[in-house]
């Protein structure tokens, strides 16, 4: 029982880091640059599809991943230059509307290009092994790779945002673009570059998960809300917050699913507990968010206003 608990703890952490990896690009664009980007999910999806295509073209997942990065960077650049740059100074709701439109366009585009059937990518031999954990349960090496990628992304983002002038300028630009410009910084160019970088992070996440998750036209939308939940729980504008939020969601979701019914059985009839567990399980993440926001209206690490 304890070993199972520890294992589930590990699973929760790992799921949380996966979530952070997926949300990282959004943390940058939405959390730091203050742009409500509903298109984050579809860029993530495009990343996964590109990884599939490039991998089958080159025959190597590693190469596929490497090609996906510049490709999604270019996609981000194209989106920024054509649409996003004209929306920074607009209300959030305009951004919602425009990116909602982009979601429709890109989703349909992906279906036209790649079809509706789920696709997949073969993970490289080298990483496809697993090692024994407890009993018959083995832990896949690739999961470790994902954990490492997520941690590195988190660390990198944190350093850039909190400890470089680029990060300062981004945060400054998010609250007052024209002042930043009037102090001599080409904020448009900076935003363009960082936006494209954010798209690349999304693409990176998509390519990273392609070997473990299904690649299908619904995958982007599936994670979009989760990504927002993670960032909002952590507090908008804080990389640390997003990371904490991701871990929390991962843990609560995983532990809630596996031990929630057991806990419920301790306080009610088994049948009722089963029923209640089934009702509550899918709500867990949302209950978590509602409770956190009710107690801390600006998230865990958000600035109080």
């Amino acid at each position, binding site marked *: 029982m304890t070993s*199972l608990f520890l*294992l*589930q703890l590990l*699973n*929760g952490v*790992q*799921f949380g880091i*996966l979530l952070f990896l997926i949300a990282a690009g959004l943390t940058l664009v939405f959390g730091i640059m203050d742009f409500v980007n509903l298109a984050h999910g579809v860029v993530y999806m495009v990343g996964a599809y590109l990884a599939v295509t490039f991998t089958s073209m080159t025959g190597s997942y590693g190469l596929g991943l490497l090609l996906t990065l510049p490709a999604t960077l270019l996609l981000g650049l194209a989106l920024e230059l054509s649409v996003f740059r004209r929306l920074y100074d607009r209300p959030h709701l305009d951004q919602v509307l425009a990116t909602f439109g982009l979601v429709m366009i890109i989703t*349909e585009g992906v*279906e036209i290009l790649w*079809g*509706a*059937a*789920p*696709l*997949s990518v*073969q993970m490289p031999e080298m990483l*496809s092994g*697993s090692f*024994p954990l*407890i*009993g*018959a*349960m*083995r*832990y*896949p090496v*690739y*999961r470790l790779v994902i954990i490492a990628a997520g941690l590195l992304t988190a660390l990198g983002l944190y350093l850039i945002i909190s400890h470089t002038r680029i990060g300062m300028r981004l945060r400054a630009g998010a609250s007052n673009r024209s002042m930043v410009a009037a102090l001599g910084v080409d904020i448009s160019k900076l935003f363009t570059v960082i936006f494209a970088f954010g798209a690349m992070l999304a693409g990176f996440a998509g390519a990273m998960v392609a*070997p*473990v*998750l*299904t*690649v*299908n*036209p*619904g*995958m982007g939308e*599936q*994670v979009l809300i989760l990504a927002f939940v993670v960032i909002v729980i952590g507090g908008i504008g804080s990389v640390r917050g997003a990371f904490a939020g991701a871990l929390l969601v991962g843990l609560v979701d*995983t*532990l809630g*699913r*596996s031990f929630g019914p057991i806990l419920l059985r301790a306080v009610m009839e088994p049948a009722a507990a*089963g029923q209640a567990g*089934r009702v509550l*399980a*899918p709500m867990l993440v949302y209950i978590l968010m509602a409770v956190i926001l009710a107690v801390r209206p600006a998230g865990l690490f958000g600035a109080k206003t």
Partner: protein
Amino acid sequence: QDDDTLKIGLILTLSGPGAVLGEMSRDGFQLAAEEIGDIGGMKTEIVIADAEQKPDIAANKARELVERDEVDIVVGPIFSNILGAIHKPVTDSGAILISPNAGPSVYAGAECNPNFFATSYQNDQMHEVMGAHAQEEGYQNVFLLAPNYQAGKDSLAGFKHSYDGEIAGEIYTQLGQLDYSAELAQIAAMQPDAVFAFMPGGMGVNLVKQYRQAGLETIPFLSAFTVDESTLPAQQDAALGFFGGSNWAPDLDTPENKAFVEAYEAKFDQVPASYAMAGYDTAYLIDAALREAGGVADKDALIAALESAPFTSVRGDFSFGPNHFPVQDFYLTEVVKREDGKFATSVVKKIFDDYQDNYVADCQMN
């Protein structure tokens, strides 16, 4: 409306995550329609609508089909909750509704309707096949896994209907869940004799890959709608040797099936799944019934003709029960890699012969 033109409306999910199923169904139907030419000997017009996997939108599109396009027959949908939304508007209008996939229990039982037919199966049956198989194998301890929604609950109920052994654990996962490590850890801890899963679509892809990666493949994986030709291109090797229950498989040995699979693969460059098969069969059923009834003018005659199922199904034995649901054979299937490198399910053995659903007794057709 001319008596010599036939209008058929297809309402299937053609966008969103479930689109691949709808597309297969549509392609199967159209393949048959091309082979037949004039369905029922009538000039045929086929109108296609996208149900979008949104029930209320589907309900409107169904009404558009029967009220604006005035179709005689509606074929669809894929998903049970969509059927709930379109069933009434279509049957109320007097049109005939034929489901090539969804077969929820209400319409097999209490709310059966003369204008409604299912050419697929009653939803519970696929799960019952696996339950019966588990029973036959003498598994003492089976772990059950399904998403937390109506079809998921029905599936586990279906499995238990024909399996009497112990249930090692019964987990309802979230719809659209990404990561199954928590569930897999539980399975690893319990070491059941077998796992039964109902995980349609992308969820099945995630589960199967992760199941294999977690090294659990020594525990037999029984499933329904989880490993089939719609998901195998994504699951590939990970699904090899996994079991499913079905009323059909591409290598089912009938001459009609051989012809169908060959034609389908030639045309669409993919292995058909049962959705395509049911679409294909549906077109032939309509054709044969129309020829027998002499057109669409007399609906009662057409219904009577449909009831007699005057066609040769690619499945071989096929007839309708009094509730307009099929009486057919069910098989255990297993995922194999074919010689051409493609993945497909393959018949292992027949589990049920001429099997009828459990709700037919509740049906008072009038």
